[in-house]
């Protein structure tokens, strides 16, 4: 299936200032914690001091004695989740793995799990009252290590978890929550053909998405039971769906207004505090605000699966890959939520190979439930595959990019997950990386270079858009997707392109759930493609309407009207109406001008990226300096190239952080020891050089503007590029991330 993909653009591909920019550089933009409303009180969540325990009782009596404490809550205030499934945009949610994150029910499964909450007239009073809530626990043995948790005699987290993906379904519950194996060809025959086989195991620690804005919300309920939520989220409709299911309040009673969002990266694709605020508001009759502390954000939101990936790759002596075999184990924390499926499906997706086997195991431990992070599941296996590819190229005396070009997938190739590729940009990206000046730079002593290539599938899903025209011809574009990185600019550019008017006359707005039709959340690299697709459709419908109005005024047939540069034109240019003129006459030509579009976008297409990293290692301290960094990525079509570059640079630096610094450090009691930005160190400005970018545009054949989606794939190539560069620079082979100075130094001294 192909469509006409537009290639000549007037506005798309330019770099105008974003429409929401002024509010963001002046501090006027309102984020999650910035709203204070009349009569508002403050919620505070009581969290478990133990990693695994039964809750025997919760006593609020002392807390309630404090004047100004107006409500309390626990899991008793929420419906039992049972086996209810909630339809989600991308995958269905099981209520029983969401509800206990909001409030533990009978048992706590990780340190800092929410157990109870109080609401009081000031934030400090609420914090004080929370300390007076007496929770009696019966401590249970806990398990933190995935291998220990997978053993038969391990402390069992859930008695209703049976390993999924095994036939027949086991009758004994297990901490091994899912297993999966995909195969194509004959793996043994593949290795038999190989002249060189390398096998390694790479470990990646649990990390956090690290958004700078903590989760925050305000909830209020009016006398009729209508619930208003203001919160920072990647999806207001997702908040509506999940909060309704968790609280048992009908979905139709909710109005969710998304604030500006201070970063998410997948971590704000679920709820943590909104249902608590709703129940406290219901019980107190007052608006309730909850703002998570940074410490709680680290301990009880987000984190990302740690993983252990064993990979074995065989090649012929002339550099053709004959077999790829991977086993990946992921720590899902206390509930099944890891991205084990994409990890198994996509690890080797960059390479053409007839014989692939990939297996995955998801294990539950007494740690916070993991959640999505930018290309969930892909960076971990790709680290292992790409590092081994680099090692193989070196052993074969081949340039690592040439080796990849020899084996890279292209149109028509079938990856392990089965869906054949259409036009894709991997080879183009590889060639661009090779000819970049950074790739020619000469390396000195203690310096090394690493290459990483990556794939991500990208999503489409449901989106809607509304366009209204004011009397003076200005355009309002309404969408339901929180603008996490400049999407208002791309929505406005696409509308400008269709309507033929300058972007400055278009005001894009992100609206609440009452003001637009349903939209899936901002995630999965889908907003520009799917919500942008809805904007294009709505704008096209508006152009038809404008032509109709012009035809009526001129008493011509609509077929005689052309829409050129924001004007209705007829009679070879003799007759012209500007958009503003038609807008002024809207009242007499049929009423207000508006257009609505919605769709379930089935036209997503994958993205590929290639990164090259040069480092220098200090042999006395083990410290790594990034010297040069190059990102090449296929955007399909870059609607606003500066924000595409921004996604590439941001993803690269998150990956650099994961490779070099970031890791969750749990003590033996299962408490996170580094729950703050001082000890959980994300990259800072002085850690980095400029991040050079090259945007490749191989249009998505299924999208009217060729868009693919750019947000996620960028985090996949950095880890292997950085790790290979460090190992080469220091002449070491460390496969256990992060490559922090002590670890690098120990390997140098070994």
């Amino acid at each position, binding site marked *: 299936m192909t469509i006409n993909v537009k290639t000549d653009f007037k506005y798309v591909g330019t770099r105008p200032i974003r429409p929401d920019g002024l509010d963001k550089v002046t501090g006027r933009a309102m984020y999650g*914690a910035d709203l204070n409303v009349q009569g508002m009180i403050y919620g505070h969540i009581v969290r478990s001091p133990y990693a695994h325990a039964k809750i025997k009782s919760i006593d609020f009596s002392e807390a309630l004695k404090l004047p100004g404490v107006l409500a309390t809550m626990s899991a008793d205030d929420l419906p039992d989740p049972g086996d209810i499934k909630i339809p989600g945009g991308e995958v269905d949610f099981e209520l029983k793995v969401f509800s206990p994150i909001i409030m533990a029910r009978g048992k706590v499964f990780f340190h800092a799990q929410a157990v109870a909450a109080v609401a009081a007239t000031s934030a400090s009073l609420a914090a004080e009252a929370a300390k007076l809530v007496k929770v009696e626990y019966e401590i249970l043995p806990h398990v933190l290590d995935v291998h220990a948790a997978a053993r038969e005699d391990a402390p069992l987290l859930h008695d209703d978890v049976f390993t999924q993906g095994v036939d027949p379904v086991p009758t004994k519950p297990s901490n091994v929550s899912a297993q999966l194996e995909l195969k194509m060809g004959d793996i043994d025959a593949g290795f038999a053909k190989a002249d060189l086989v390398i096998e390694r195991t790479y470990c990646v620690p649990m990390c956090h998405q690290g958004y700078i804005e903590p989760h925050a919300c305000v909830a209020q309920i009016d006398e009729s039971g209508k619930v208003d939520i203001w919160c920072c989220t990647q999806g207001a409709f997702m908040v509506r769906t999940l909060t309704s299911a968790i609280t048992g309040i009908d979905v139709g009673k909710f109005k969710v207004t998304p604030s500006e969002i201070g970063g998410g990266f997948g971590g704000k694709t679920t709820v943590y505090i909104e249902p608590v605020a709703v129940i406290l508001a219901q019980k107190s009759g007052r608006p309730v605000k909850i703002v998570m502390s940074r410490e709680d954000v680290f301990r009880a939101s987000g984190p990302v699966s740690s993983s252990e990936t064993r990979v074995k790759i065989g090649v012929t002596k002339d550099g053709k890959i004959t077999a790829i075999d991977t086993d990946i184990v992921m720590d899902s924390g206390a509930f099944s939520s890891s991205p084990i499926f994409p990890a198994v499906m996509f690890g080797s997706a960059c390479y053409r190979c007839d014989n692939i086997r990939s297996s995955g195991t998801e294990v539950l431990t007494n740690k916070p439930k993991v959640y999505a992070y930018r290309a969930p599941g892909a960076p971990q296996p790709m680290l292992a595959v790409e590092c081994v590819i680099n090692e193989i190229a070196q052993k074969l005396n081949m340039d690592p990019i040439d080796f990849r070009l020899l084996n890279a997938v292209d149109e028509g190739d079938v990856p392990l997950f089965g869906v054949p590729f259409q036009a894709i940009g991997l080879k183009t990206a590889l060639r661009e990386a090779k000819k970049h000046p950074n790739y020619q730079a000469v390396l000195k002593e203690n310096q090394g270079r690493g290459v990483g290539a990556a794939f991500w599938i990208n999503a489409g899903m449901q989106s809607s858009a509304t366009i209204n025209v004011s009397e003076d011809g200005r355009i309002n574009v309404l969408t339901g997707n929180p603008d996490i990185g400049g999407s208002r600019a791309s929505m406005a550019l696409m509308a400008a392109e269709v309507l033929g008017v300058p972007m400055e006359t278009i005001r894009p707005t992100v609206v609440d759930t009452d003001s637009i039709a349903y939209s899936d959340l901002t995630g999965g690299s889908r907003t520009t493609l799917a919500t942008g697709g809805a904007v294009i459709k709505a704008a096209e419908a508006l152009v038809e309407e404008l032509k109709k109005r012009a035809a009526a005024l001129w008493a011509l047939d609509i077929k005689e009207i052309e829409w050129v540069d924001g004007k209705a034109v007829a009679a070879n240019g003799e007759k012209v109406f500007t958009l503003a003129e038609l807008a002024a006459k809207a009242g007499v030509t049929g009423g207000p001008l508006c257009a609505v579009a919605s769709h379930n976008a089935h036209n997503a297409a994958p993205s590929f990226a290639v990164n090259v990293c040069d480092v220098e290692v200090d042999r006395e301290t083990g410290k790594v300096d990034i010297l040069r960094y190059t990102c090449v990525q296929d955007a399909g079509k870059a609607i606003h190239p500066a*924000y595409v570059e921004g996604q590439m640079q941001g993803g690269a630096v998150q990956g650099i952080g994961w490779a070099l610094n970031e890791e969750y450090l749990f003590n033996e009691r299962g408490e996170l020891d580094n729950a703050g930005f*001082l000890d959980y160190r994300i990259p800072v*400005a002085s850690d980095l050089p400029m991040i050079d970018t090259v945007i490749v545009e191989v249009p998505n054949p299924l999208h009217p503007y060729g868009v693919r989606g750019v947000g996620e794939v960028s985090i996949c190539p950095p880890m292997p590029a950085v790790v290979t560069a460090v190992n080469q620079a220091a002449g070491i082979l460390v496969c256990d991330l992060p490559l922090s100075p002590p670890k690098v130094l120990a390997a140098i001294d070994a």
Partner: protein
Amino acid sequence: MSKQRKTHVSTTVNGEPCEFLCEPTQVLSDVLRNNLNLTGTKEGCNTGDCGACSVMLDGALVCACLVLAVEVQDRDIETIEGVAKEGKLHPIQQKLLEHAALQCGICTPGVVIASKALLEKNPDPSESEVRYWLAGNLCRCTGYDKIIRAVLDAGAVMRGE
């Protein structure tokens, strides 16, 4: 704690006289945001690690979350709300926009305040000086590249280049 009396503080915020009542444990970022409704100053950590609450206190760059509100009696505070003057952006604000140097924008007010402080002290910083000066302002979205370029460019504008 709840029974403690509030303290009266008189201070100057963005050149205007200002008074507030605060609890003795309240920090300046909390008072700015929740007592004075100046929510442009952001809170990302409340431990002085992220720089989102950067403000100027008597001409010195500080994390407002590390300053007790009662300490600002008779002091001079400048926040993000006071940077654009007479309807005109400061060059650093303009350059951040032109370079697309913000994605989510939560770190941006802190980056504006910190960069302005740098450029007032050192009108012609090197890339490395900008990077070390801004090392206390965490940004998770941009990878810093465009922010650094914007600051260097704003410096050039302020020098009249």
